[in-house]
Protein backbone atom coordinates (compact mmCIF):
# COMPACT_ATOMS: atom_id res chain seq x y z
CA UNK A 1 0.00 0.00 0.00
CA UNK A 2 2.71 2.42 0.99
CA UNK A 3 4.60 1.60 -2.18
CA UNK A 4 1.63 2.58 -4.30
CA UNK A 5 1.34 5.76 -2.33
CA UNK A 6 5.00 6.44 -2.90
CA UNK A 7 4.60 5.93 -6.62
CA UNK A 8 1.57 8.17 -6.77
CA UNK A 9 3.25 10.92 -4.84
CA UNK A 10 6.44 10.77 -6.89
CA UNK A 11 4.89 10.38 -10.29
CA UNK A 12 4.86 13.45 -12.48
CA UNK A 13 1.52 12.67 -13.98
CA UNK A 14 -0.25 12.35 -10.65
CA UNK A 15 1.56 15.10 -8.82
CA UNK A 16 -0.56 16.70 -6.13
CA UNK A 17 -0.46 20.39 -5.60
CA UNK A 18 -1.55 22.80 -2.95
CA UNK A 19 -4.52 24.94 -3.70
CA UNK A 20 -4.47 28.65 -3.04
CA UNK A 21 -7.98 29.97 -2.68
CA UNK A 22 -9.04 33.53 -2.06
CA UNK A 23 -12.01 33.46 0.26
CA UNK A 24 -13.42 36.91 0.00
CA UNK A 25 -13.51 39.90 -0.23
CA UNK A 26 -16.87 38.89 -1.64
CA UNK A 27 -17.74 35.61 -0.07
CA UNK A 28 -20.96 34.60 1.66
CA UNK A 29 -19.31 33.42 4.85
CA UNK A 30 -16.93 36.26 5.60
CA UNK A 31 -19.80 38.59 6.57
CA UNK A 32 -18.21 41.64 5.10
CA UNK A 33 -15.18 42.51 3.09
CA UNK A 34 -12.56 40.28 4.62
CA UNK A 35 -10.20 38.37 2.38
CA UNK A 36 -8.56 35.22 3.49
CA UNK A 37 -5.82 33.59 1.52
CA UNK A 38 -6.44 29.93 2.26
CA UNK A 39 -3.93 27.25 1.39
CA UNK A 40 -5.69 23.98 0.83
CA UNK A 41 -4.73 20.41 0.31
CA UNK A 42 -7.94 19.05 -1.14
CA UNK A 43 -10.46 19.88 1.51
CA UNK A 44 -7.90 20.32 4.24
CA UNK A 45 -6.91 23.81 5.32
CA UNK A 46 -3.15 24.21 5.62
CA UNK A 47 -2.82 27.89 6.32
CA UNK A 48 -5.00 30.96 6.49
CA UNK A 49 -3.76 34.46 6.01
CA UNK A 50 -6.35 37.16 6.66
CA UNK A 51 -6.04 40.31 4.57
CA UNK A 52 -7.93 43.23 6.01
CA UNK A 53 -8.28 46.90 5.28
CA UNK A 54 -10.94 46.84 2.60
CA UNK A 55 -13.14 49.12 4.66
CA UNK A 56 -10.52 50.87 6.69
CA UNK A 57 -12.13 54.22 7.37
CA UNK A 58 -9.46 55.93 9.40
CA UNK A 59 -11.67 56.50 12.41
CA UNK A 60 -8.68 57.06 14.68
CA UNK A 61 -7.42 59.80 12.40
CA UNK A 62 -10.86 61.37 12.16
CA UNK A 63 -11.16 61.39 15.93
CA UNK A 64 -8.14 63.65 16.23
CA UNK A 65 -10.07 66.42 14.51
CA UNK A 66 -13.44 66.27 16.25
CA UNK A 67 -14.76 66.85 19.73
CA UNK A 68 -15.58 64.15 22.26
CA UNK A 69 -19.37 64.00 21.78
CA UNK A 70 -18.71 63.66 18.09
CA UNK A 71 -16.29 60.79 18.66
CA UNK A 72 -19.07 58.87 20.31
CA UNK A 73 -21.14 58.89 17.19
CA UNK A 74 -18.22 57.56 15.15
CA UNK A 75 -17.81 54.55 17.41
CA UNK A 76 -21.26 53.42 16.31
CA UNK A 77 -19.80 52.68 12.93
CA UNK A 78 -17.07 50.37 14.18
CA UNK A 79 -18.74 47.43 15.78
CA UNK A 80 -22.21 48.31 14.67
CA UNK A 81 -23.74 45.37 16.48
CA UNK A 82 -22.47 46.55 19.87
CA UNK A 83 -22.93 50.21 19.01
CA UNK A 84 -24.23 51.10 22.42
CA UNK A 85 -21.32 49.51 24.27
CA UNK A 86 -18.83 51.34 22.09
CA UNK A 87 -20.61 54.62 22.77
CA UNK A 88 -20.56 53.88 26.43
CA UNK A 89 -16.83 53.21 26.43
CA UNK A 90 -16.05 56.68 25.12
CA UNK A 91 -18.60 58.31 27.40
CA UNK A 92 -17.17 56.52 30.43
CA UNK A 93 -13.65 57.47 29.41
CA UNK A 94 -14.56 61.15 29.20
CA UNK A 95 -16.45 60.98 32.49
CA UNK A 96 -13.49 59.33 34.14
CA UNK A 97 -11.12 61.96 32.86
CA UNK A 98 -13.34 64.79 34.02
CA UNK A 99 -14.19 62.94 37.24
CA UNK A 100 -17.88 63.35 36.62
CA UNK A 101 -20.19 61.22 38.70
CA UNK A 102 -23.23 60.22 36.66
CA UNK A 103 -26.60 59.66 38.30
CA UNK A 104 -27.71 56.12 39.10
CA UNK A 105 -30.48 56.37 36.59
CA UNK A 106 -27.94 56.75 33.81
CA UNK A 107 -26.03 53.71 35.01
CA UNK A 108 -29.18 51.63 35.05
CA UNK A 109 -30.30 52.77 31.62
CA UNK A 110 -26.85 52.17 30.19
CA UNK A 111 -26.60 48.70 31.62
CA UNK A 112 -30.02 47.68 30.36
CA UNK A 113 -29.19 49.02 26.92
CA UNK A 114 -25.87 47.19 27.01
CA UNK A 115 -27.54 43.92 27.70
CA UNK A 116 -30.19 44.54 25.08
CA UNK A 117 -27.55 45.19 22.47
CA UNK A 118 -25.63 42.14 23.64
CA UNK A 119 -28.79 40.12 23.12
CA UNK A 120 -29.38 41.64 19.71
CA UNK A 121 -25.82 40.95 18.71
CA UNK A 122 -25.92 37.38 19.93
CA UNK A 123 -29.20 36.81 18.14
CA UNK A 124 -27.72 37.99 14.90
CA UNK A 125 -24.67 35.85 15.53
CA UNK A 126 -26.89 32.85 16.19
CA UNK A 127 -28.87 33.18 13.02
CA UNK A 128 -25.80 33.79 10.92
CA UNK A 129 -24.07 30.84 12.50
CA UNK A 130 -26.97 28.63 11.48
CA UNK A 131 -26.84 30.03 8.00
CA UNK A 132 -23.13 29.41 7.70
CA UNK A 133 -23.70 25.80 8.64
CA UNK A 134 -26.46 25.51 6.06
CA UNK A 135 -29.57 25.78 8.26
CA UNK A 136 -31.09 28.75 6.51
CA UNK A 137 -34.23 28.93 8.59
CA UNK A 138 -32.40 30.03 11.72
CA UNK A 139 -31.57 33.28 10.00
CA UNK A 140 -35.17 34.36 9.95
CA UNK A 141 -35.99 33.23 13.47
CA UNK A 142 -33.04 35.14 14.86
CA UNK A 143 -33.85 38.29 12.95
CA UNK A 144 -37.50 38.04 13.94
CA UNK A 145 -36.56 38.27 17.61
CA UNK A 146 -33.89 40.87 17.01
CA UNK A 147 -36.42 43.19 15.41
CA UNK A 148 -38.18 43.47 18.73
CA UNK A 149 -35.02 44.75 20.42
CA UNK A 150 -34.38 47.15 17.58
CA UNK A 151 -37.91 48.48 18.02
CA UNK A 152 -37.12 49.18 21.66
CA UNK A 153 -33.97 51.00 20.58
CA UNK A 154 -35.83 52.96 17.99
CA UNK A 155 -38.48 54.09 20.40
CA UNK A 156 -36.02 55.27 23.04
CA UNK A 157 -32.88 56.21 21.12
CA UNK A 158 -34.35 57.20 17.78
CA UNK A 159 -32.28 54.79 15.70
CA UNK A 160 -32.18 51.08 15.29
CA UNK A 161 -28.54 50.23 14.77
CA UNK A 162 -26.25 53.22 15.13
CA UNK A 163 -28.02 54.43 18.23
CA UNK A 164 -25.64 57.18 19.43
CA UNK A 165 -27.52 57.22 22.71
CA UNK A 166 -24.67 58.16 25.04
CA UNK A 167 -23.26 61.56 25.73
CA UNK A 168 -20.47 62.42 28.09
CA UNK A 169 -22.28 62.70 31.39
CA UNK A 170 -25.38 60.76 30.61
CA UNK A 171 -27.67 59.68 27.86
CA UNK A 172 -29.22 61.70 25.12
CA UNK A 173 -32.87 61.31 26.07
CA UNK A 174 -34.71 59.96 29.02
CA UNK A 175 -36.15 56.52 28.45
CA UNK A 176 -39.44 56.45 26.63
CA UNK A 177 -42.52 55.97 28.85
CA UNK A 178 -43.18 52.64 27.12
CA UNK A 179 -39.63 51.44 27.62
CA UNK A 180 -40.07 49.37 30.75
CA UNK A 181 -43.23 47.69 29.52
CA UNK A 182 -41.71 46.91 26.17
CA UNK A 183 -38.54 45.47 27.68
CA UNK A 184 -40.53 43.32 30.06
CA UNK A 185 -42.70 42.09 27.22
CA UNK A 186 -39.63 41.30 25.23
CA UNK A 187 -37.93 39.40 28.06
CA UNK A 188 -41.07 37.35 28.53
CA UNK A 189 -41.35 36.71 24.81
CA UNK A 190 -37.71 35.85 24.36
CA UNK A 191 -37.70 33.40 27.23
CA UNK A 192 -40.20 31.35 25.25
CA UNK A 193 -38.16 31.61 22.06
CA UNK A 194 -34.72 30.78 23.42
CA UNK A 195 -35.54 27.09 23.99
CA UNK A 196 -36.55 27.01 20.35
CA UNK A 197 -33.03 28.03 19.41
CA UNK A 198 -31.79 25.03 21.34
CA UNK A 199 -34.26 22.67 19.74
CA UNK A 200 -33.53 23.88 16.26
CA UNK A 201 -29.76 24.04 16.37
CA UNK A 202 -28.04 23.29 19.66
CA UNK A 203 -29.56 19.86 20.12
CA UNK A 204 -29.39 18.88 16.48
CA UNK A 205 -27.14 15.88 15.96
CA UNK A 206 -25.73 17.25 12.70
CA UNK A 207 -24.90 20.53 14.37
CA UNK A 208 -23.17 18.89 17.31
CA UNK A 209 -21.16 16.67 15.01
CA UNK A 210 -20.18 19.67 12.94
CA UNK A 211 -18.99 21.72 15.90
CA UNK A 212 -17.68 19.57 18.71
CA UNK A 213 -13.92 19.12 18.77
CA UNK A 214 -13.42 21.65 15.98
CA UNK A 215 -11.23 24.72 16.24
CA UNK A 216 -9.39 24.04 19.47
CA UNK A 217 -7.89 27.14 21.06
CA UNK A 218 -6.03 26.40 24.26
CA UNK A 219 -6.41 28.77 27.24
CA UNK A 220 -2.78 29.82 26.97
CA UNK A 221 -3.21 30.61 23.30
CA UNK A 222 -6.38 32.55 24.00
CA UNK A 223 -4.47 34.85 26.35
CA UNK A 224 -1.47 35.01 24.05
CA UNK A 225 -3.55 36.01 21.06
CA UNK A 226 -5.74 38.26 23.17
CA UNK A 227 -8.92 36.44 22.23
CA UNK A 228 -11.56 37.92 24.49
CA UNK A 229 -15.30 37.88 24.82
CA UNK A 230 -17.34 34.72 24.47
CA UNK A 231 -14.65 33.24 22.23
CA UNK A 232 -12.05 33.68 24.92
CA UNK A 233 -14.30 32.52 27.72
CA UNK A 234 -15.03 29.33 25.82
CA UNK A 235 -11.31 28.65 26.08
CA UNK A 236 -11.41 29.07 29.81
CA UNK A 237 -9.92 32.56 29.72
CA UNK A 238 -11.81 34.46 32.39
CA UNK A 239 -12.00 37.82 30.69
CA UNK A 240 -15.45 39.20 31.44
CA UNK A 241 -14.81 42.85 32.24
CA UNK A 242 -18.30 43.17 33.63
CA UNK A 243 -17.03 40.98 36.44
CA UNK A 244 -13.40 41.99 36.73
CA UNK A 245 -13.63 45.73 36.20
CA UNK A 246 -17.30 46.50 36.67
CA UNK A 247 -18.64 49.73 35.26
CA UNK A 248 -22.09 51.37 35.14
CA UNK A 249 -24.59 49.26 37.06
CA UNK A 250 -22.76 45.96 36.76
CA UNK A 251 -21.51 46.02 40.36
CA UNK A 252 -25.12 46.00 41.49
CA UNK A 253 -26.35 42.94 39.60
CA UNK A 254 -25.78 39.28 40.16
CA UNK A 255 -24.74 37.27 37.17
CA UNK A 256 -22.40 34.46 36.30
CA UNK A 257 -19.42 34.69 34.08
CA UNK A 258 -19.94 31.88 31.63
CA UNK A 259 -16.78 29.84 31.29
CA UNK A 260 -16.26 26.73 29.27
CA UNK A 261 -13.17 24.59 29.19
CA UNK A 262 -13.80 22.58 26.06
CA UNK A 263 -12.18 25.28 23.90
CA UNK A 264 -13.91 24.20 20.70
CA UNK A 265 -16.55 25.60 18.39
CA UNK A 266 -19.39 24.03 20.32
CA UNK A 267 -18.11 25.61 23.53
CA UNK A 268 -18.02 29.03 21.90
CA UNK A 269 -21.54 28.45 20.66
CA UNK A 270 -22.86 27.38 24.05
CA UNK A 271 -21.16 30.22 25.91
CA UNK A 272 -23.05 32.67 23.77
CA UNK A 273 -26.35 30.87 24.19
CA UNK A 274 -25.86 30.83 27.97
CA UNK A 275 -24.88 34.48 27.91
CA UNK A 276 -28.23 35.27 26.41
CA UNK A 277 -29.89 33.72 29.45
CA UNK A 278 -27.58 35.73 31.71
CA UNK A 279 -28.40 38.93 29.86
CA UNK A 280 -32.09 38.26 30.30
CA UNK A 281 -31.59 37.80 34.04
CA UNK A 282 -29.54 41.02 34.30
CA UNK A 283 -32.31 42.93 32.55
CA UNK A 284 -34.84 41.31 34.89
CA UNK A 285 -32.93 42.55 37.91
CA UNK A 286 -32.64 46.11 36.67
CA UNK A 287 -35.76 46.91 34.73
CA UNK A 288 -38.09 47.35 37.69
CA UNK A 289 -35.61 49.29 39.81
CA UNK A 290 -34.60 52.15 37.54
CA UNK A 291 -34.20 54.99 40.06
CA UNK A 292 -35.78 58.36 39.47
CA UNK A 293 -33.50 61.24 38.71
CA UNK A 294 -31.74 63.10 35.99
CA UNK A 295 -30.85 61.30 32.82
CA UNK A 296 -27.73 63.37 32.24
CA UNK A 297 -25.34 65.60 34.09
CA UNK A 298 -25.15 69.11 32.76
CA UNK A 299 -21.83 69.35 30.99
CA UNK A 300 -20.04 72.35 29.56
CA UNK A 301 -20.78 73.26 26.00
CA UNK A 302 -17.24 72.50 24.92
CA UNK A 303 -15.81 69.50 26.67
CA UNK A 304 -12.06 69.68 27.24
CA UNK A 305 -10.23 66.81 28.84
CA UNK A 306 -7.34 67.51 31.18
CA UNK A 307 -3.91 66.63 29.91
CA UNK A 308 -3.09 62.97 30.34
CA UNK A 309 -3.83 59.46 29.18
CA UNK A 310 -7.12 57.74 29.84
CA UNK A 311 -8.09 54.18 29.18
CA UNK A 312 -11.52 52.66 29.45
CA UNK A 313 -12.32 49.04 28.85
CA UNK A 314 -15.81 47.70 28.37
CA UNK A 315 -17.15 44.30 27.49
CA UNK A 316 -18.92 44.34 24.16
CA UNK A 317 -20.70 41.41 22.58
CA UNK A 318 -17.44 40.32 20.91
CA UNK A 319 -15.01 40.91 23.70
CA UNK A 320 -12.93 43.59 25.25
CA UNK A 321 -13.30 47.02 23.72
CA UNK A 322 -10.83 49.63 24.87
CA UNK A 323 -10.68 53.36 24.31
CA UNK A 324 -7.30 54.96 24.82
CA UNK A 325 -7.37 58.74 24.76
CA UNK A 326 -4.29 60.90 24.95
CA UNK A 327 -5.36 64.44 25.62
CA UNK A 328 -3.33 67.60 25.40
CA UNK A 329 -5.98 69.73 27.06
CA UNK A 330 -7.74 70.81 23.90
CA UNK A 331 -11.26 70.01 22.85
CA UNK A 332 -10.00 67.40 20.41
CA UNK A 333 -7.98 64.46 21.60
CA UNK A 334 -4.31 64.26 20.67
CA UNK A 335 -4.55 60.59 19.85
CA UNK A 336 -7.32 58.06 20.15
CA UNK A 337 -6.74 54.36 19.92
CA UNK A 338 -9.54 51.85 19.85
CA UNK A 339 -8.67 48.40 21.04
CA UNK A 340 -11.23 46.41 19.10
CA UNK A 341 -12.02 42.84 20.06
CA UNK A 342 -12.44 41.59 16.51
CA UNK A 343 -8.90 42.58 15.56
CA UNK A 344 -7.29 40.27 18.07
CA UNK A 345 -9.86 37.54 17.63
CA UNK A 346 -9.44 37.37 13.87
CA UNK A 347 -5.77 36.53 14.00
CA UNK A 348 -6.33 33.50 16.17
CA UNK A 349 -8.25 32.00 13.25
CA UNK A 350 -5.16 30.50 11.68
CA UNK A 351 -4.29 28.76 14.92
CA UNK A 352 -7.78 27.33 15.26
CA UNK A 353 -8.62 26.29 11.73
CA UNK A 354 -5.33 24.77 10.63
CA UNK A 355 -5.75 21.15 9.71
CA UNK A 356 -9.54 21.22 9.57
CA UNK A 357 -11.82 21.14 6.55
CA UNK A 358 -13.11 24.15 4.61
CA UNK A 359 -16.54 23.65 6.14
CA UNK A 360 -14.97 23.81 9.60
CA UNK A 361 -13.18 27.01 8.71
CA UNK A 362 -16.56 28.56 8.01
CA UNK A 363 -17.95 27.28 11.28
CA UNK A 364 -14.97 28.53 13.28
CA UNK A 365 -15.14 31.93 11.65
CA UNK A 366 -18.80 32.05 12.54
CA UNK A 367 -18.16 31.40 16.21
CA UNK A 368 -15.52 34.12 16.32
CA UNK A 369 -18.39 36.44 15.42
CA UNK A 370 -16.38 38.89 13.38
CA UNK A 371 -17.64 42.31 12.42
CA UNK A 372 -15.33 43.66 9.76
CA UNK A 373 -15.61 47.43 10.40
CA UNK A 374 -14.60 46.62 13.94
CA UNK A 375 -11.40 45.04 12.68
CA UNK A 376 -10.60 47.62 10.01
CA UNK A 377 -11.71 50.67 11.94
Amino acid at each position, binding site marked *: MSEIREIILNSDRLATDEYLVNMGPQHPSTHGVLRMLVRLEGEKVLNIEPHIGYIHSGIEKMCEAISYP*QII*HLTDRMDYLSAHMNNEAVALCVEKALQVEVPDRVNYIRTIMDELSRLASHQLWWCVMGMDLGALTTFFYGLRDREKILDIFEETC*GARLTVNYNLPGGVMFDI*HPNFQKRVKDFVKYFRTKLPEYD*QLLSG*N*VIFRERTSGIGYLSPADAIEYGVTGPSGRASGFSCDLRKHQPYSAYPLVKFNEILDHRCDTLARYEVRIKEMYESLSIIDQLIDNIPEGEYAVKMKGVIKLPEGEFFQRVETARGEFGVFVISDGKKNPYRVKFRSPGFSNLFALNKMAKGHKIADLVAIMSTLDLVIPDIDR
Partner: protein
Amino acid sequence: MKSFIEYIGSIFKGIWTLLIGMKVTGKYFFTPWKNVTQQYPENRDQLVMFERFRGEVIMTHNENNEHLCTGCGICEINCPNGSIEIISKSILTPDGKKKRIIDQHIYHLGMCTFCNLCVKACPTGAIVMGQKFEHAVWDRSLLTKVLNQPGSKIEEGVKE
Protein backbone atom coordinates in the same frame (compact mmCIF):
# COMPACT_ATOMS: atom_id res chain seq x y z
CA MET B 1 -22.20 -5.91 22.28
CA LYS B 2 -22.10 -2.74 24.31
CA SER B 3 -20.76 -0.75 21.41
CA PHE B 4 -23.45 -2.24 19.20
CA ILE B 5 -26.16 -1.02 21.58
CA GLU B 6 -24.49 2.38 21.62
CA TYR B 7 -24.46 2.36 17.82
CA ILE B 8 -28.20 1.61 17.66
CA GLY B 9 -28.84 4.11 20.43
CA SER B 10 -26.92 6.82 18.62
CA ILE B 11 -29.05 6.29 15.52
CA PHE B 12 -32.31 6.68 17.41
CA LYS B 13 -31.03 9.60 19.45
CA GLY B 14 -29.83 11.32 16.32
CA ILE B 15 -33.13 10.84 14.54
CA TRP B 16 -34.96 12.09 17.63
CA THR B 17 -33.00 15.36 17.73
CA LEU B 18 -33.69 15.81 14.03
CA LEU B 19 -37.41 15.30 14.62
CA ILE B 20 -37.37 17.92 17.40
CA GLY B 21 -35.86 20.37 14.95
CA MET B 22 -38.48 19.50 12.37
CA LYS B 23 -41.16 20.05 14.97
CA VAL B 24 -40.08 23.65 15.41
CA THR B 25 -40.11 24.49 11.72
CA GLY B 26 -43.25 22.41 11.21
CA LYS B 27 -45.04 24.36 13.91
CA TYR B 28 -44.40 27.60 12.04
CA PHE B 29 -45.33 26.06 8.70
CA PHE B 30 -48.74 25.05 9.93
CA THR B 31 -49.43 28.37 11.64
CA PRO B 32 -49.06 30.69 8.66
CA TRP B 33 -51.18 33.41 10.30
CA LYS B 34 -48.23 34.08 12.61
CA ASN B 35 -46.08 35.23 9.71
CA VAL B 36 -44.10 38.34 10.45
CA THR B 37 -43.59 39.71 6.94
CA GLN B 38 -44.69 43.26 6.41
CA GLN B 39 -45.73 44.16 2.88
CA TYR B 40 -43.88 47.41 2.80
CA PRO B 41 -45.17 49.74 0.12
CA GLU B 42 -48.71 48.52 0.67
CA ASN B 43 -48.69 49.16 4.40
CA ARG B 44 -47.38 52.69 4.10
CA ASP B 45 -50.53 54.09 5.68
CA GLN B 46 -50.24 51.93 8.79
CA LEU B 47 -46.51 52.57 9.13
CA VAL B 48 -46.10 55.12 11.86
CA MET B 49 -42.54 55.78 12.94
CA PHE B 50 -41.70 56.33 16.57
CA GLU B 51 -41.74 59.98 17.55
CA ARG B 52 -38.01 59.96 18.31
CA PHE B 53 -37.06 58.30 15.07
CA ARG B 54 -34.30 60.25 13.36
CA GLY B 55 -35.12 60.46 9.69
CA GLU B 56 -33.92 63.93 8.69
CA VAL B 57 -33.36 67.33 10.19
CA ILE B 58 -36.24 69.68 9.68
CA MET B 59 -37.02 73.19 10.83
CA THR B 60 -40.46 73.73 12.25
CA HIS B 61 -42.48 76.62 10.95
CA ASN B 62 -45.67 77.93 12.48
CA GLU B 63 -48.75 78.98 10.50
CA ASN B 64 -47.35 82.49 9.90
CA ASN B 65 -44.30 80.98 8.21
CA GLU B 66 -42.11 81.81 11.16
CA HIS B 67 -39.31 79.71 12.57
CA LEU B 68 -37.17 79.82 15.68
CA CYS B 69 -33.72 79.85 14.11
CA THR B 70 -31.51 82.76 14.98
CA GLY B 71 -28.69 81.69 12.73
CA CYS B 72 -26.25 81.33 15.61
CA GLY B 73 -24.37 78.50 13.97
CA ILE B 74 -24.09 76.20 16.99
CA CYS B 75 -25.56 73.33 15.01
CA GLU B 76 -22.94 73.89 12.34
CA ILE B 77 -20.17 73.63 14.95
CA ASN B 78 -21.67 70.55 16.51
CA CYS B 79 -22.14 68.65 13.30
CA PRO B 80 -19.38 66.04 12.96
CA ASN B 81 -19.66 65.73 9.19
CA GLY B 82 -20.17 69.27 8.06
CA SER B 83 -23.63 68.56 6.79
CA ILE B 84 -25.04 71.87 8.01
CA GLU B 85 -24.07 75.23 6.56
CA ILE B 86 -25.47 78.46 7.88
CA ILE B 87 -25.56 81.43 5.58
CA SER B 88 -26.57 84.54 7.43
CA LYS B 89 -27.18 88.10 6.30
CA SER B 90 -27.32 91.48 7.96
CA ILE B 91 -30.51 93.46 8.05
CA LEU B 92 -31.53 96.72 9.61
CA THR B 93 -34.13 96.32 12.30
CA PRO B 94 -36.98 98.89 12.41
CA ASP B 95 -35.30 100.67 15.29
CA GLY B 96 -32.24 101.21 13.17
CA LYS B 97 -29.92 98.53 14.58
CA LYS B 98 -27.92 96.15 12.48
CA LYS B 99 -28.86 92.52 13.08
CA ARG B 100 -27.63 89.24 11.69
CA ILE B 101 -30.37 86.83 10.75
CA ILE B 102 -30.48 83.54 8.95
CA ASP B 103 -30.53 83.65 5.21
CA GLN B 104 -30.28 80.01 4.37
CA HIS B 105 -29.99 76.99 6.64
CA ILE B 106 -28.44 74.49 4.25
CA TYR B 107 -28.64 70.84 5.16
CA HIS B 108 -26.82 68.12 3.23
CA LEU B 109 -28.91 65.03 3.84
CA GLY B 110 -26.44 62.89 1.96
CA MET B 111 -23.70 63.63 4.48
CA CYS B 112 -25.83 63.42 7.60
CA THR B 113 -25.30 60.52 9.99
CA PHE B 114 -28.39 61.28 12.08
CA CYS B 115 -26.45 61.62 15.30
CA ASN B 116 -28.86 64.17 16.78
CA LEU B 117 -26.05 66.39 18.08
CA CYS B 118 -27.30 69.46 16.22
CA VAL B 119 -30.81 69.11 17.57
CA LYS B 120 -29.45 68.53 21.04
CA ALA B 121 -27.26 71.64 20.81
CA CYS B 122 -29.78 74.03 19.30
CA PRO B 123 -30.43 76.70 21.94
CA THR B 124 -33.84 77.72 20.61
CA GLY B 125 -35.17 74.34 19.52
CA ALA B 126 -35.52 75.53 15.95
CA ILE B 127 -34.45 72.28 14.31
CA VAL B 128 -35.92 68.90 15.15
CA MET B 129 -35.66 65.41 13.75
CA GLY B 130 -38.32 64.50 11.23
CA GLN B 131 -39.74 61.00 10.87
CA LYS B 132 -39.66 60.74 7.09
CA PHE B 133 -37.46 57.88 6.00
CA GLU B 134 -38.02 57.55 2.26
CA HIS B 135 -35.21 59.74 1.05
CA ALA B 136 -34.27 58.05 -2.21
CA VAL B 137 -33.91 60.51 -5.04
CA TRP B 138 -32.60 60.32 -8.59
CA ASP B 139 -30.15 63.17 -8.29
CA ARG B 140 -27.66 63.70 -5.52
CA SER B 141 -28.14 67.46 -5.64
CA LEU B 142 -31.72 66.98 -4.42
CA LEU B 143 -30.30 65.81 -1.09
CA THR B 144 -29.08 69.32 -0.34
CA LYS B 145 -31.96 71.11 1.25
CA VAL B 146 -32.67 74.57 2.52
CA LEU B 147 -34.47 74.13 5.80
CA ASN B 148 -35.95 77.56 6.29
CA GLN B 149 -38.86 78.08 3.95
CA PRO B 150 -38.66 80.93 1.47
CA GLY B 151 -39.96 84.14 2.86
CA SER B 152 -39.96 82.86 6.40
CA LYS B 153 -38.79 85.00 9.27
CA ILE B 154 -37.86 84.54 12.85
CA GLU B 155 -40.65 84.32 15.39
CA GLU B 156 -41.13 87.29 17.68
CA GLY B 157 -39.56 87.08 21.08
CA VAL B 158 -36.88 84.50 20.38
CA LYS B 159 -33.82 85.35 22.45
CA GLU B 160 -30.60 85.73 20.60
